[in-house]
């Protein structure tokens, strides 16, 4: 009997492409936002508006990704979100504590970047755990 190749799963392809779009948009937003810091007047406002629109697109992509996953994967996404939430809570408490001690304030966009980084780390950890448990 010849070995059969598994069919391409359109759901898996959709999820992968949504994640790819999410990270591309995140990088794009970060680049535009960073560029805005070195611009002036109208150009700065236009770049900030562009990064804001990009952020909405980012959230929309994330929601589409969350809708595309099945109930089994939802467990792991939940783990990643829990990891990111607790991580952010600890970081924000630390930031507030350091700010009260006289350290300079951490800008808001840095916290957004941290949230995305923590969520990504949570995804990597939970997918690693899944691989270790089930594969």
């Amino acid at each position: 009997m010849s070995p059969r190749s598994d069919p391409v799963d359109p759901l898996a392809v959709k999820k992968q492409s949504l994640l790819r779009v999410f990270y591309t948009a995140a990088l794009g937003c970060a680049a535009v936002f960073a560029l805005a810091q070195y611009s002036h007047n109208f150009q700065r406002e236009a770049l900030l508006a562009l990064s804001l629109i990009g952020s909405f697109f980012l959230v929309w992509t994330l929601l589409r990704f969350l809708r595309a996953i099945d109930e089994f994967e939802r467990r792991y996404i939940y783990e990643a979100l829990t990891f990111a939430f607790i991580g952010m809570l600890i970081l924000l408490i630390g930031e507030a504590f350091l700010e009260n001690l006289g350290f300079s304030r951490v800008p808001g966009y840095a916290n957004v970047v941290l949230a995305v980084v923590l969520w990504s780390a949570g995804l990597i950890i939970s997918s690693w755990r899944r691989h270790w448990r089930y594969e």
Partner: protein
Amino acid sequence: MKTRLRVLRAEREWSQAELAMHVGVSRACINAIETGRYDPSLPLAFKIARVFGKNVEEVFLYQNGESGNPASSQD
């Protein structure tokens, strides 16, 4: 929960990926159900059973407190 998924899949010569496509879930999900490491939700269990043209109790067998469970005697 015990499952006859592997047997039913083998009867139809379906791979896990093919079954996953029929049901609309990931291959990892089917793998986890088959190996008994994940219990599907009721809607998913019904969906899987429907794909095989069976009743839920013919595909999934509840193991705890089997004495009064008619499904447990079918395997």
